[in-house]
């Protein structure tokens, strides 16, 4: 039986870039463990020699000609969606080094 203890939940939350308070850690530890225990049901299924689904309607690759086309959206319009300052056509983020 897979259970996720409080430290496991804190580790997963960190990987997913989420902050959890102690109460949330406790709550999610129970809920996530319950979900994982439910999906363990899949281990009963004999999948020996079964290929995993890659694409459900059987498509492989979708290619197009390598031609330069006008963008559907102006770069300025995309930049203007950012909630952060835009400096010289770049988004200014908080420092990566603190």
């Amino acid at each position, binding site marked *: 039986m897979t259970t*996720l203890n409080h430290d496991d*939940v804190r580790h*997963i*939350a960190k*990987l*997913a*870039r*989420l*902050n*959890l308070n102690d109460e949330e850690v406790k709550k*999610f530890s129970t*809920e*996530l463990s*319950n*979900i*994982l225990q*439910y*999906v*363990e*049901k*899949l*281990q*009963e*299924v004999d*999948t020996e020699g*079964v*290929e*995993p*689904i890659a*694409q*459900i*309607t059987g*498509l492989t690759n*979708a290619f*197009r000609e390598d031609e330069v086309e006008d963008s*559907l*959206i*102006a770069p300025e*319009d*995309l930049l*203007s*969606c*950012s*909630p*952060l300052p835009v400096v010289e056509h770049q*988004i200014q*983020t*908080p*420092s*990566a*080094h*603190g």
Partner: protein
Amino acid sequence: MDSMLHTLSIAQAHEKLQKKEISCTELTKACIDRAESVDKKLNALVYRNFERALEEAKKIDAEGEFTHLLTGIPFVVKDNFCEKDIPSTGCSNVLRKKDYRPPFESTATARVKAVGAISLGKGNTDEFTMGASTETSCYGVTRNPWDPSRVAGGSSGGCAAAVGADECLFALGSDTGGSIRQPAGFCGCSGLRATYGRVSRYGVMSMASSLDTVGPICKSVEDIAIVLSTIAGKDPLDGTTGDVPVPDYTKALHGDVKGLKIGLPKEYFIDGMDEQVEKAVRDAATQFEKMGAVVTDISLPHTEYAVATYYVIVPSEVSSNMSRYDGIRYGHTTDAATDLIDYYHLARTEGFGDEVKRRIMIGTYALSAGYYDAYYRKAQKVRTLIRKDFDDAFQNVDVILTPTYPTPAFIVGALEGDPIAMYLQDIFLVSQGLSGMPGMTVPCGFTSQNTLPIGLHLTGPQWGEDTILNAAYAYEQAMDWKEQKPNL
């Protein structure tokens, strides 16, 4: 002016528009008035675009050409679809707080607008479509037009309630594991999930990319065929769309089901299912027999693993898709961060609700080193077996008939705080998503005590929308369920 114009189907309204019996402005105004009078009770619409809709209507009236069946027809679109310059938030605080206005338009909305359909606004949804009741929406729950103490369903609950309550003539929704079909069933509408790749998802916020589909919610089967014919087809902007010709689906509606082979899977008639739901579906099967169809019992042996498969694959893909909401290119921001990593944490923690966090964490765990084979890869193998169940069944039958949901619409809050109970209810809906098959719901009766709609579900083989549409049409024409309206 006919004050009941909002109750018309697309086909009925088109005829009146073409004959100039009504104007597009009158039709649009009727829907707006209806929304103004009933939506306070329902909360179906999270953004109202009424002024722009009336301007469009005037333009169309001035041109006076109703060449396409959708010209001048008012619709609602689910809030996870991007409409250019119109708030599109996925009903998540991650996008709502900055009122995200996309600089582009989804292909599905672009296609219906290109022929003159009129957008009235955005329909409520569970946050980024994660839920089956719209209870996870940052705008609060949508209530059922048939009984406002109950949910409209989800995740496309706002769209289904808006169509069910006649606030619009049709709606565009999305369906990953039931999000069109369950709310349409709960609200007494018809709703179709198309074959995976039948309709472009460009400009629709992704939840689980290997399952997400786009489709219509309407007042009649004919209307579903009209909308599907307009939105379906290959799109260079969505590489998963299939290069399969799009028929005029309305031509498939001949109403003849003589000799049609219909399968009833024994795994879908289970203990604990609502008795009235079961009876309504079995009565529908008898009705099909009366019309000349051949009904047989079939088996889809891996059904009991569908929910577990779904709740590994979906959270895994969710964890990947939700990584784009980092507060950099769009969405919620904060000025409290000490550095970039802290910024990501704060923007996401403040923006996402609990169900989204739950799925992100399950997916992060399932995809992490050492667990991928046991979870995601295993689930994709079981998915192959679920798909094979359907392929085998379609060797012998043309259509699979099942209930849409084990119960009628439930009371608001009844399943809150118990994620697994909510997940398990998806049992009849997730297999079509996992196998890429098209499925649709049509009304097949009402519960006796509280008059709640019951949905009948038809599944066809991949690209077999024409077959299920015709079967649903034949049944709908023989019954008068769709004539009944909620008393709001």
